[in-house]
């Protein structure tokens, strides 16, 4: 195969697989939530309810693509596209296995952080353009939450960057050949996981949606395909954040006996299941608690981790 064909195969393979996994996650999440809440979840359509995904898709595509008359139409249509595109683009830098992955940027980590920061536009604009009070509140919350948690999300990764000495995700994975970064960077791992949940607006940090208080937050006025895009964006975001944790802290594709792709997929799947478990288990904090938690606990923790890691790296560096 020529390099171009190989590249195209990678691009479309990753695209198709990521979208398929995102769709499948709807079913996986509902079944797992059911399992942990002593019930079944969707088990009627097809084997184990697997065709529920298809049924949901048909339903969401058949729905009227409605734009509220009071909304800002252009922005309303644009907002869900941003989140879907941005998370998909961010997936491009994820190193799935040697030779598998869309691009190999030497600033891959920064690219990921930049793209996940852009996601906030989607929520804020969607909330603003909907021109309804719930959407607006959800949009505000999304903006504040995502900006706050982004700060130490980036900071918590700097320890990894220092240890690996590079922003290149493939080099970071290779640097974990002897010891996964979860051991020396455990604090960074915890902080990044929590920030990742908040960044992808997963429960328990789904304040921007907060069904109990804000109806559905920023996507209250969305329906049909546009709502579907928000959903796809959210699930790709979940896969993305799990893939990033695996890459940065759990040794990526590294592992004995099994082929690298299998290791990557297994690790990511376990993390996704863990995130769903958190959704099943934890209640949503109050908004001020969320903010206080971020700024007063997580940020100092990330900074201390950064300073200690830096000091150790400098102390152990050969003098020259």
């Amino acid at each position, binding site marked *: 195969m020529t390099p171009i064909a190989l590249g195209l195969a990678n691009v479309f393979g990753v695209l198709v697989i990521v979208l398929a996994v995102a769709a499948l996650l709807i079913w996986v999440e509902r079944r797992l939530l*059911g*399992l*942990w809440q*002593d*019930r*079944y979840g969707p088990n009627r359509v097809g084997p184990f309810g697997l065709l529920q995904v298809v049924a949901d898709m048909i339903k969401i595509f058949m729905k009227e693509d409605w734009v509220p008359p009071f909304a800002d139409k252009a922005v309303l249509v644009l907002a869900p596209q941003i989140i879907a595109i941005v998370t998909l683009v961010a997936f491009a830098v994820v190193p799935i296995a040697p030779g598998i992955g869309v691009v190999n940027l030497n600033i891959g980590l920064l690219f990921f952080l930049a793209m996940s920061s852009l996601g906030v536009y989607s929520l804020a604009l969607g909330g603003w353009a909907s021109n309804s009070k719930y959407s607006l509140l959800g949009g505000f919350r999304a903006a504040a939450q995502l900006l706050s948690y982004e700060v130490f999300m980036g900071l918590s990764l700097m320890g990894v960057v220092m240890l690996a000495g590079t922003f290149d995700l493939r080099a970071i994975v290779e640097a974990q050949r002897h010891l996964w970064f979860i051991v020396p960077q455990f604090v960074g791992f915890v902080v990044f996981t929590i920030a990742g949940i908040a960044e992808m607006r997963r429960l328990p940090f789904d304040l921007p949606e907060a069904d109990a208080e804000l109806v559905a937050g920023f996507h209250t006025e969305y329906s049909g395909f546009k709502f579907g895009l928000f959903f796809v964006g959210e699930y790709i975001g979940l896969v993305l954040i799990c893939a990033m944790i695996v890459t940065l802290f759990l040794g990526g594709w590294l592992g004995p006996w099994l082929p690298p792709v299998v290791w990557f997929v297994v690790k990511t799947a376990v993390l996704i299941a863990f995130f769903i*478990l958190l959704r*099943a*288990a*934890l209640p949503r904090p109050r908004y001020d608690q969320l903010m206080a938690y971020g700024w007063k606990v997580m940020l100092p923790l990330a900074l201390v981790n950064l300073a200690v890691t830096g000091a150790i790296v400098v102390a152990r560096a050969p003098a020259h």
Partner: protein
Amino acid sequence: MWSSIRTAWTIFLHMFRRRVTIQYPEEKPYIPPRWRGRIILSRDPDGGERCVACYLCAVACPVDCISLQATEDEHGRRYPEFFRINFSRCIFCGYCEEACPTYAIQLTNDFEMGEYDRQNLVYEKEDLLIDGPGKYPEYNFYRVAGLAIGGKDKGEAENEAPPVDLKRLLP
């Protein structure tokens, strides 16, 4: 933080619990005998209709879903000419059963009455009438009531003394 982790662990252990869901169409749930479900009209042990068309059920019905028309046969025995229950309105409160003086109208423990056409939920008398006496197998209204009716005169009912002869002098 610690409590969150412990919560997550507890929920994780729920993976090994039995699921509480009853897989309904295949697996039927237990329905208590006093369940208030589909309404029926019962017959007395002799096979006659119990309903005497007194309208009390229609009056008691909070959603006005019962409609009937009283009429009499040649013996002066009252019965409903038609008896109609609109089950798309019925809330299965059981007030009609409580109001019924003859145990004619009864609620059963059948609840599977789904229909695709709303009109099919309007049950006529022939849909409502069952062949048996329902929850009260021994009860026969006309055999315990003091009313004189075709084939049964005053004083012939169960536990009823013959009527006092007003024209006799003896006590």
